[in-house]
């Protein structure tokens, strides 16, 4: 569902998600994210990247999770990469692409 990587030189935390991020998946995902040491113990300068190349559906609860991490990380320190077109369209339509720095 999610794997983590930390690049200490670049100070980048990358969370790679896979599958359908529906409500139930996010319920399962939340404690994993909360207890993940890389995320939990991150420094103020660390950037967070959510790689969602393998995600084909996002529920509003997943978007909420993204927004929460974007707010915590601060301006310019959070981004979502490798969206599939359908997911990208979803972010665009909801007008959240700028807040979440989607690419």
């Amino acid at each position, binding site marked *: 569902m999610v794997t983590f990587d930390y690049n200490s030189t670049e100070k980048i935390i990358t969370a790679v998600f896979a599958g359908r991020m529906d409500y139930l998946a996010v319920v399962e995902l939340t404690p994993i994210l909360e207890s993940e040491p890389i995320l939990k113990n991150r420094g103020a300068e660390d950037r967070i990247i959510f790689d969602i190349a393998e995600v084909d559906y996002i529920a509003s609860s997943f978007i909420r999770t993204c927004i929460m991490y974007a707010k915590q990380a601060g301006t310019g320190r959070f981004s979502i990469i490798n969206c*599939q*077109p359908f997911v990208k369209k979803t972010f665009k*339509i909801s007008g959240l692409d700028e807040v979440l720095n989607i690419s």
Partner: protein
Amino acid sequence: MAENLKEIADEILEKAQLAAAEFHQFNQEQTDRIVEAVFRVGFSNRVKLAKRAQEETGMGIWEHKVIKNVLGTQLVYESIKNEKTVGVISYNSQTGIAEIAQPLGPILAVIPVTNPTSTAMFKILICLKSRNPIIISSHRGASKSCAETVRICYEAALSAGAPEDCIQMITSGSRDFTQMMMAHPKIALILATGGTGLVKAAYSSGNPAIGVGPGNVPVFIDESADIPFAVGNIISSKTFDNGTICASEQAIVMVDAIEKEVRREFERQNCYFLTNEEIKKVEKIAIVPETGSMSAQVVGQSVLTIAKLADINIPEGTKILIAKLDGIGKEFPLSGEVLAPILAFYSAKDYHAAINCCIDLNYLGGIGHSACIYSNNEKRIMEYAELLNAGRVLVNTPSSQGAVGALFNQLPPSLTLGCGTGGKNITTENITAKNLLNIQRVCRRKPNEMFFGFDQSKYYDESLTADEITKEYYKNH
């Protein structure tokens, strides 16, 4: 000054109101006679008006403006001439519903500098067909050619029996006055075609408005496409009237695997790829840095003029300037809309990345307008159409001439293209006469037998589930 302008506005609207009152009493035959007369005179003057528009604005190519005038008159007329727009326009004996068309009242039509004569004639025809008086507000840069168009059409309308003042034109030309007119309580609808500011002003006026703003048309060339055909079509479209149609192509997107082939084909068909240094020079003259929007000095200009302005040397016979860009947004000024023969060019690692690029371009100021795809893969065509936010998705078609309808497809011919809510419009349709009518529905008594045959006391029984009630509701009584 403001009071004086208000008096002028009141006077124009008073005249329009009287015209509306008279027009309201016209039957279909009288209406159609007027529309035909205006079509004939507009069509007869298509060349003269095209030349005047080009001379006055210094934009575009007069021969292409002739075609625009043909679209705005002949093709529009052909599409509306047999439409019922007066009285009962339909009756469905099964539903018992009759539809009655009523005019709206005075319509304020804002005309862009890029298509001053064709858009004016188009709007006049659809307003007259729907028995609405029209008040034309022209762009200052095109007021003479627009005024001549209005004069010709008005005289023809009058001679065919139209009410006095059914076509008027605002001569003041000031932005304040146009805004005052937009907000006037006697305006029934604003038909605004123009830039973002104008459309926003129309929607903020407090009156109903159909406003059509900018586009930023991405073109995806799929691997399955016939590349020489696609490139030829793109060139014929982007060079049409020097790119002044808002549905013209703005960026070409493909996957890396076919980039070289596409590039070679553009070069073979006389397009010029700018160097990075030249891109910077073109950006400087084509885009206003403060706003990020296109500069008026390049709108509708030839490649040669643009090259001179940018101080770059290009091969003789160049048709389009192409800028290969690495990104989209403010940092890449040419990724936005430029109504001139300048194209952005993108290559992406794979199909998904290419489509994402098109989505980004689509949302960079062109939401809801138009998009284009060249492909022979039906699945990808439909996928693209679903992913892009565009009122029109043109398939294997030049987007300028395709989006305006009637030429390459069966879309209604129109010079006002709805962009849906993404573009702050109420519709994604190509605007035509039917959009300028209030449709009343006369509903004959046709009782819902299911509802009245059902024991309605059961609705008050909270113990019954939706399934139980539905089953009972659909039971044959």
